[in-house]
């Protein structure tokens, strides 16, 4: 069995699976239950300034028969008394001394920050997470994402915390910003020990078209919430990658956003996260999913020969580059494996209407064929095909040649005018516009 223990900026935990600060960590009962089932850490539901929550707090994006592809909430930080939370943190640590209990915090003044840090550390918290990400309700009061969107303020508050903190400090970043590396660098300047990202994305999750009010509806009105769940994973992964690739000012990362299964965990680790945090999947399926996270990660590590989680961290980063460094000589084309084809012709429609008219149909058979000279290797057909491995993308260049946009720029061989013969699509065949009328 591989060693799953991790250490994020000085906070150790028996495995990389943490619960994110959210409803699943609202109470000692939930955190104990989660640890008992196999979670390695929990970031407590944010403690801080007093709030009042509304009834009707969540909304969801369902996709066909899949519920909660995306999830949105307008819930604020904890509305339970601080003393109750502190007592429960203490209790949890008594039973689970090796597990990571992180206190998520959100207050306003320097004095308040100093006081609450002292309180939670006295209760036994292993680390602190500064909630600079919440994009609804709290930001209007100058907290949450209002801080995360102002790198200077973020840096200042982080340094206030660092003045008194004895445990490691994680800064949680908001994705509601143009360049995620700016707040990441500000956290570094403020001497944070780690960053966690992403918090939720400001969102509306659809509109009740009878009442004409967005969800969730609070007595006929609604407001923007924070978006999370599987739908946000691609956005979060890109941001994690950006922070992980920083050459200067890089901090250890706790990856958050749409994690639901072991594969998601592996992806985040390969993109540079030291551990991960999960919320929506637990709100959907409960703590039990950790069993799949653990067994899947174990199997993957065994298959790949990793002894520790840390060995995996960032393994994909070297393969993420900027567009200008991609090989323009690389050429793939689609190939349809006839024996696997179920004749749905989705690839035909997708290519015909949505891409490059590089798939044809014959009179004899319902199995489409590739018109290789038109195929730009875009992958679309292989993505819409409902059968695994039925359409594969096959390499057609010789694998020897390489030229990138950057190199062409240096060579002076890039197209520079609108009708430049050096431009890419010049020799690419497209049908005559009027041919549109001759199709079914």
């Amino acid at each position, binding site marked *: 069995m591989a060693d799953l223990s991790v250490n994020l900026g000085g906070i150790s935990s028996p495995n990389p699976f943490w619960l994110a600060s959210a409803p699943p960590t609202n109470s000692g009962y939930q955190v104990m239950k989660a640890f008992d089932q196999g979670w390695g850490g929990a970031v407590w539901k944010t403690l801080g300034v007093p709030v009042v929550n509304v009834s009707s707090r969540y909304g969801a994006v369902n996709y066909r*028969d899949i519920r909660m592809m995306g999830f949105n909430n307008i819930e604020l930080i904890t509305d339970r008394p601080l003393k109750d939370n502190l007592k429960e943190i203490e209790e949890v640590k008594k039973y689970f001394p090796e597990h990571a209990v992180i206190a998520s915090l959100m207050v306003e003044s320097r004095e308040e920050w100093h006081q609450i840090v002292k309180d939670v550390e006295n209760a036994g918290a292993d680390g602190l997470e500064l909630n600079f990400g919440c994009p609804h309700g709290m930001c209007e009061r100058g907290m949450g994402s209002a801080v995360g969107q102002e790198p200077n303020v973020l840096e200042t508050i982080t340094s206030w915390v660092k003045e008194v903190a004895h445990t490691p400090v994680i800064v949680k970043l908001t994705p509601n910003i143009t360049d995620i590396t700016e707040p990441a660098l500000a956290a570094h300047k403020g001497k944070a020990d780690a960053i966690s990202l992403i918090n939720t994305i400001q969102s509306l999750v659809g509109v009740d078209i009878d009442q004409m009010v967005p969800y969730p509806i609070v007595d006929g009105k609604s407001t923007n919430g924070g978006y999370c769940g599987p739908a946000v994973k691609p956005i979060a992964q890109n941001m994690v990658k950006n922070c992980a690739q920083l050459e200067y000012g890089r901090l250890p990362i706790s990856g958050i956003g749409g994690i639901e299964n072991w594969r998601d965990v592996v992806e985040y680790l390969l993109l540079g996260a030291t551990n991960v945090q999960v919320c929506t999947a637990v709100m959907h399926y409960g703590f039990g999913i950790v069993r799949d996270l653990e067994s899947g990660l174990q199997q993957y590590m065994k298959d790949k020969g990793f002894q520790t989680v840390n060995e995996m961290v960032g393994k994909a980063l070297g393969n993420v580059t900027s567009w200008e460094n991609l090989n323009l000589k690389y050429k793939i084309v689609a190939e349809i494996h006839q024996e696997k*084809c*179920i*004749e*749905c012709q*989705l690839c035909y429609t997708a290519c015909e209407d949505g891409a490059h008219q590089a798939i044809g149909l014959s009179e004899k058979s319902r199995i489409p064929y590739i018109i290789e000279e038109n195929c730009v290797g875009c992958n679309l057909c292989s993505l819409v095909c409902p059968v695994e491995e039925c359409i594969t993308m096959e390499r057609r260049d010789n694998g020897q040649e390489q030229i990138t946009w950057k190199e062409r720029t240096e060579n002076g061989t890039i197209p520079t005018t609108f009708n430049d013969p050096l431009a890419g699509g010049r020799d690419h065949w497209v049908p005559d516009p009027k041919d549109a009328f001759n199709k*079914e």
Partner: protein
Amino acid sequence: MTDFKRPANPQEFEENFEQLHPIMNATQAHYESSRCLFCHDAPCINACPTEIDIPLFIRQINTNNLSGAAKTIYESNWLGNICGKVCPTEVLCEGACVYNHQEVKPIEIGRLQSYASSVAINRNKHLFEKALDNGKKVAVVGAGPAGISAACELALLGCMVTVYEAKELPSGLALYGVAPYKILNDTVLEEVEYLQKQFGFHIKYQHPLQAAEDFEQLDRAFDAVFLGIGLGSTRELQLEGESLDGCWGAVEFIEMLKTLQHKAMVGKKVVVLGGGNTAMDAASEACRLGAEQVVLAYRRSKDEMRAYEFEYELAKSVGAVGLWNVTPLAILGEEKVVGVLFIETRTIDKKLETIPGSDYTIDCDMVIKATGQNKQKALVQLIPGIQTDPSGRILTVNDLGQTHNARYFTGGDAMNGGKEVVNAVAEAKVAARGIHQYLTENQG
């Protein structure tokens, strides 16, 4: 031995004849519709005689556009709910579903179709606006699937339609001939009532046309006629004992069952003659009525039966026992049936012959002959100019269902010799459009 107790009341009847394709609930419909791939040039559409845009209505169900789904269905098929339940989908749309290539369960198209159309029926959704009255009057003879389909289409096109029906209730074999486990009588009648409300055609019940004068009157009162007269009674086998008490034609047996429900009569030991789908139905039905023993006897081999595989499986699953390569020589008994004298057969050089000396008797108190229906020859002969093929099917002069008498169009069993409900619906729709075209062209 069959597994069914003789049903003593409507509830027990319903239990014995439990619906094969019950109406889906909204959750089932949502999950099932989610699976549809939305194929290009979808094979399911091509497999449907009415060419319903199946991927579209399934998508509409999935987006909760149920009226849109029902409209997509009814635009192509006026008996959307009935067909969803009684169509042999296994060999039509669902048999063509591309999932079959992957050994994934095909989409339950029939049930989805019934779901969407029954929602429209239950909510009495008015989906279609009739064209303005074009002043043309059309008579429809027969309120079976073909007649109802033609009536809807003609009314939509702006014709005044009157339907003449010999029986007390509409829907023809969809009501009197389809096995009760496929569809309930009420379901059939509700769809016709829904259509009638929407299109306002009039049905004259118990109004058989029996004499040449009846058709002369039609000719005077109407601009054109659609003949949806279907087929007649069960064909005689010319066997000794065929008129004994307890010897039934399958069509008559099923009609009796559909009318009397739990009070329907059935023998203790039943022999069903035939190897087609009607034979399978009759055997299933006899089992479910509580017959102790049901033998399905077919003169050729099992593989040569015309019945769909799933229909045979269904009959077998409720206790009917197949007996192949036997042909009846006589039906035995004094007043009542007591048995059937069979002789074994074999096929030599593609010719079926009996094996001398191989005759034997099977005791029974009921015989059901599922050996085909007569054509309505006598009725057709009353109409001047109409021609039939040697088997008695009405001939048409074009693919619009027009007969040799230009004012008469036809479709359904009377023309095709006996196919599915969905074929009748499709052919009648085409014929109705043919009538409209004929009347419009003749206008000026």
